[in-house]
């Protein structure tokens, strides 16, 4: 958003916005296809499709207005490096290129929730297909397409479900900054996500892709043009992870308000900080591997083709070198949320703040040394197995620290059982099962049976849905009063929690049994004696979906049917983000606050209020 300067009437003559973006994306696609076909390769038009997607995304971003600022700089027109904070409360700002971190956070939240709906519908269709042991409800071709779409859509969502909405909205508020370090990068990290989702969904027109989210070649080289959606969509998500990673790091390191020392940093910000490191370092590896895969598919390179000197192990290593840190990109912000919320509702200081931070960074560090546990059965050099077994099991130590800090904070507390706190307790239960089942998979002898079975599927759903999504729900109930100005109904919230908690466990716990009883992942047919368990899971999955609809209902109810604005600090929390008015003013803080206390100093004698808001003028955070 370039604000026209009063001194000059020179500016871009065509309007930019969401509609322009869509208008430019469509010809972009066809130009890309045409360009790709010029090469005349034996590649089933894959070059055309990939370039088509790429040009469409570029057209979309240009139409949105991403080029305005650099173009104006190049041409010497006057620009505003950081847009002035204008009070602007129109709906239109949510549909345009906004550089306000609060608008971007809300854009992210709504986009992610819509994507979540589609991902969940995919899951429902998969479960419906598994009502019968043969493939009579869904033919194998459609079933495998559903597997691919559900898995990759969910990976897109879970990469960003906390980092995107809550990270962007709350990190500046929690550290006392008026904006993010790089607002345009921040906007880019959001605006590549909707195209990624659309491109992924476009795979339907090519019959989907058969590989699931792992995209193992040579199967992914054998696949049709649907695979190109996987490649381009994932590259866009990698771009989102890198840009938001570098932005979060710069913001947290450089934009903290005076007095916001490292030991006063809220745990959620620590969680985002650790996540940003992982995203920044892991996502480029994925992007590289995807470019190699695209070249194999189009220009007949043979990175992954064994018959011509390549190796599919190259992909497996690159993919999991990204893929394992990726799962901590999912869970570290969730750890941050749990450790952030529990002190506020236990009304006690965080028990072992420094130990908790060490736990987060222990997970961050160890996550780089474990990826080959995905390859235990793949035929890697056997001498590597003991090392990866040990490194994987070591991760339970820092994870155990997170549990220790949380349980210690609840010790002899006066716990306020609000809805967010219920979700935190649910997280502890679910993630405990998810974590323990991970140890089974890290142990090579048991992994022989459990690898690639429903057991591993149950394991990562326990960590991601039971962990990350439960933490995301806690975050929604906790922070949405600040973000939307509306309290979610606590009564519906309580029903939602118990419904979701029971339905979740009833859905995913039987999957452990199915895995131990010889059911491989991603199959459209299974042994007839497993039908009862599968039907049980399917019915539970429907109920789980119902609980999500209840949440959506609660959201809509609070937004459109509850009059008035929520109080500024409904939880009586100490931390900084609750001390600003609701709705949050355009520049967050009238004056940059001077931080004088920790966020969790409950019950401490002589505890100071968290910040002095009459503080310094213009000390940091832009104009």
């Amino acid at each position, binding site marked *: 958003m370039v604000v026209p300067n009063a001194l000059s009437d020179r500016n871009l003559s065509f309007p930019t916005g969401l509609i322009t973006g869509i208008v430019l994306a469509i010809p972009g696609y066809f130009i890309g296809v045409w360009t790709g076909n010029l090469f005349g390769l034996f590649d089933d038009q894959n070059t055309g499709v990939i370039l088509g997607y790429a040009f469409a995304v570029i057209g979309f971003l240009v139409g949105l207005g991403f080029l305005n600022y650099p173009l104006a700089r190049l041409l010497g027109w006057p620009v505003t490096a950081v847009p002035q904070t204008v009070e602007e409360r129109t709906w239109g700002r949510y549909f345009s290129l906004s550089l306000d971190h609060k608008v971007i956070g809300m854009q992210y939240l709504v986009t992610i929730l819509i994507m979540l709906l589609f991902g969940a519908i995919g899951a429902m269709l998969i479960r419906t297909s598994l009502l019968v042991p043969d493939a009579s409800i869904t033919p194998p071709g459609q079933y495998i397409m559903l597997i691919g779409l559900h898995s990759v859509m969910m990976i897109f969502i879970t990469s960003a479900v906390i980092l995107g909405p809550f990270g962007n909205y709350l990190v500046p508020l929690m550290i006392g900054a008026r904006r993010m370090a790089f607002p345009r990068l921040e906007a880019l990290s959001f605006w590549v996500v909707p195209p990624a989702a659309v491109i992924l969904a476009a795979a339907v027109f090519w019959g989907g892709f058969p590989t699931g989210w792992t995209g193992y070649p040579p199967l992914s080289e054998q696949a049709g043009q649907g695979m190109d959606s996987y490649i381009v969509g994932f590259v866009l998500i990698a771009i989102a992870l890198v840009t938001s990673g570098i932005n979060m790091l710069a913001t947290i390191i450089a934009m903290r308000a005076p007095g916001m020392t490292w030991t006063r940093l809220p745990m959620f910000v620590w969680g985002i900080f650790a996540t940003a490191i992982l995203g920044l370092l892991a996502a480029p590896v994925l992007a590289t591997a995807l470019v190699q895969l695209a070249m194999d598919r189009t220009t007949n390179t043979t990175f992954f083709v064994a018959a011509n000197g390549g190796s599919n192990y190259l992909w497996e290593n690159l993919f999991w070198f990204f893929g394992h840190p990726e799962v901590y990109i999912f869970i570290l912000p969730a750890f941050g949320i749990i450790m952030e919320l529990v002190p506020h509702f236990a009304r006690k200081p965080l028990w072992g703040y420094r130990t908790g931070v060490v736990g987060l960074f222990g997970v961050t560090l160890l996550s780089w040394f474990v990826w080959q546990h995905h390859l235990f059965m793949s035929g890697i050099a*056997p001498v590597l197995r003991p090392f990866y077994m040990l490194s994987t099991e070591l991760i339970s130590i820092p994870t155990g620290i997170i549990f220790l800090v949380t349980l210690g904070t609840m010790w002899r507390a*006066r716990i306020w059982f609000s809805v967010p706190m219920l979700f935190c307790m649910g997280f502890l239960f679910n993630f405990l099962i998810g974590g323990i089942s991970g140890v089974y998979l890290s142990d090579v002898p048991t992994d*022989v049976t459990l690898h690639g079975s429903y057991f591993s599927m149950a394991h990562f759903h326990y960590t991601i849905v039971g962990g990350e999504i439960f933490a995301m729900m806690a975050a929604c109930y906790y922070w949405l009063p600040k973000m939307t100005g509306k309290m979610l109904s606590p009564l519906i919230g309580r029903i939602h929690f118990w419904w979701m908690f029971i339905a979740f466990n009833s859905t995913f716990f039987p999957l452990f049994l199915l895995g131990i009883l010889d059911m491989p992942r*991603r199959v459209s047919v299974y042994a007839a004696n497993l039908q009862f368990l599968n039907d049980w899971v399917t019915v539970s999955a429907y109920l789980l979906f119902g609980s999500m609809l209840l949440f959506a209902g609660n959201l809509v109810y609070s937004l459109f049917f509850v009059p008035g604005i929520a109080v500024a600090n409904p939880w009586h929390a100490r931390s900084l983000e609750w001390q600003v008015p609701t709705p949050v003013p355009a520049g967050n803080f009238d004056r940059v606050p001077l931080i004088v206390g920790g966020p969790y100093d409950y019950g401490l004698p002589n505890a100071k209020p968290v910040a002095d808001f009459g503080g310094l003028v213009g000390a940091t955070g832009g104009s």
Partner: protein
Amino acid sequence: MSLRIEPADRPHAIRLLVMWVILSIIGIIAVLQIHYPPYDQTIQGEDQSKTLALLTAMATPVFIGVVMMVIYSAIYFRRATAELVDGPPMLGNTPVQVAWIGISAIAVLFLAFVGVTTLASDNVAKLVNAPGRSINTGGQTGSATAAEQGKELQVQVVAQQWYFTYRYADYGGVETTHLYLPLDRPVELHVTSLDIIHSFWAYEIGVKADANPGVDNVFHVTPQKTGSFTVRCAELCGLWHGQMSDTEGKVVSQSDFDTWIAQQQQDYAVIQKAVPSYAPFYFPEPTVKGS
């Protein structure tokens, strides 16, 4: 900080400790009553069953402890009053933290030690010295030597979309559609693929090994009980991945095996010319797209 327990902590700590010990003992005894797959048809499968039981026994006190803490907090540390009150400001307790980290580290190192020793023992199949993915070793190319007692039976598992076939190197590379293994004879499985990645999962005999094109993936197994087993594909391999299974794998006595393999060799003689000669792995044509 000393390891002193504050008077206010003492009733909670004692109550939790007693409950935890009792429930853990009951829990461990209960989970050890379960017979864990993949049972005892092979030595390797039996090892895996035992490891599964050990892991479950070790996980039980951890699970019970944490869940008990969560429930206990929900009951006893719940706010009783209508208005908000702050809890006692406890900032941490170094001895407790050190103890927690130390105990979890010991548990983890113990698990890793057990895992490594199980791996390194001959029971789970000399994994450390196995040829693995090396393309120059493993596989007895084209050899048709008669079965010598004591030597590992060489069986090649060839995966392709969407079925497994088996070749017995010691019997002239005879190709069969079902996997038969003789009782009490160590077997060296060489798993490979003709097209894409599959995973050879023979559930009851405790074998899972990925089939990669151009790679000879070695896995060892020693059957100790006769019976049948199921073979499935455990790596997504395209359209009919779910249908890539065979329920007619069998562990049979040596004499039954000899009868069976003789029959197979007879059938195989008819098609032998059409099948490529036995090799560690195969590359079917074409290998370049569009050619």
